[in-house]
């Protein structure tokens, strides 16, 4: 069977059900969900990390979320709210917020105590320390959380086509309904490419935004002997916030 014929058929690239229109929909859901997730999770995570209160709840929430079946959450919310945009979007936000929360919390929490001490020694106080020192130092892990969250949202938005949402997942669900396997495969290729490109772009954002001093690589000072490839607890925490989606 010619699997790729569908993808290179020009008629599938125009109109409200064409690839560009579905891609824009998928991008729109992802951007909207991430925006809401960021507005909720970054302030909350920064506060928990700064004060150290409620850290256990964050870890528990992220672990519990990994076990929560996304399809179950989607159909349950759509059943409660009704068919439309709201149900799936609420489900997406519920899935998007915890990785960002965990990344922000772990990032702020893992800032080197000596750095915070130095900032306080220089006369910085609570909010100054948080915004001037802790958050910039936490940026790699915050962006790590946003990356996990983005993949989760792209994946769940694809599955949400099952409950009537638009986006690239439509090709998979509609293709299945009409037994059009080339359409399903084209949809899957597009979804996978979308996820890979989004992940690479966010990887690029780390390079642009994060202070060169935090990016690893060559460190200016080496006070203790560096053991080869010792797992970095902060990086492990950030990686643990994600999972296959």
């Amino acid at each position: 069977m010619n699997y790729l014929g569908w993808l290179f058929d020009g008629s599938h690239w125009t109109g409200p059900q064409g690839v560009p229109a579905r891609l824009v929909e998928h991008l729109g859901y992802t951007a909207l969900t991430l925006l809401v997730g960021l507005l909720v999770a970054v302030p909350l995570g920064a506060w928990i990390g700064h004060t150290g209160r409620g850290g256990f709840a964050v870890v528990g929430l992220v672990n519990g979320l990994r076990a929560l079946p996304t399809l179950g959450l989607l159909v349950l919310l759509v059943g409660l709210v009704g068919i439309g945009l709201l149900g799936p979007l609420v489900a997406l936000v519920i899935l998007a917020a915890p990785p960002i929360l965990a990344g922000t919390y772990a990032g702020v929490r893992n800032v080197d105590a000596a750095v915070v001490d130095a900032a306080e020694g220089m006369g910085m106080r609570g909010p100054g320390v948080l915004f001037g020192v802790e958050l910039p130092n936490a940026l790699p892990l915050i962006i790590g959380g946003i990356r996990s969250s983005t993949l989760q949202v792209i994946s769940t938005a694809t599955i949400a086509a099952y409950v009537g949402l638009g986006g690239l997942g439509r090709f998979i669900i509609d293709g299945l309904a009409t037994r059009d396997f080339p359409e399903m495969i084209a949809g899957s290729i597009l979804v996978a490419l979308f996820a890979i490109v989004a992940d690479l772009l966010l990887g690029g954002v780390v390079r642009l935004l994060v202070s060169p001093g935090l990016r690893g690589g060559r460190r200016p000072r080496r006070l203790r002997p560096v053991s080869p490839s010792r797992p970095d607890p902060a990086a492990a925490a950030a990686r643990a916030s994600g999972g296959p989606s």
Partner: protein
Amino acid sequence: MTWVLGNLDVIRERTLEHLVLALPPVLLGLVIAIPLGWLANRTGAGRAILTNVAGLAYTIPSLALFVLLPPLLGTGILDSRNVIVALTVYTVALLVRTVADALGAVPTVIVDAATAMGYPPARRFVAVELPMAVPVILAGLRVAAVSSISLVTVGSVIGFGGLGRMFTDGFQRSIPAEIIAGIVVVLVIALVVDGLILALGRVLTPWNRIGQAAGRGT
């Protein structure tokens, strides 16, 4: 609740179906990831290639991977093997890096001591390095197992999903109780398997227990 009590046999059947889809990939993935992780820990090029490939596999959304495997494997689109292979791919992707990190973190003095006692490399790996790496590897395995248990349900969209079929069925027939029961059973299975792996870790690392007991002074 009435739905649950009237359909216990359905729940039992879906649960068994679910376990058959979710657990073999975790074991298979672990068995594949140990030699690959060893390779990644040994050579810089191996690490670079394996972590990048793993990262890429990890990025692909599950529903897309379920659909993309048939043309690659020569299976039909509606074949439960696609789900099992896809979940194995995710488990390997997750564990290769964990195994490499875990082996890399085994203190050099311990490896040197084993070498000095005359362990040949293969035996040293099985008898010393791998057991020392068990706690970190099992931490990764817990994540992989829980993810696998949860992701199986996505397969129900294309016809195979164990407990996920309670979501699609409950959605189509508007039975919220069926959906909620499905979610609860998935969470319970995840919790139980997670606990079992944790317990396995205790059994496999008796030296840690002795250390803890000594620390408590009992």
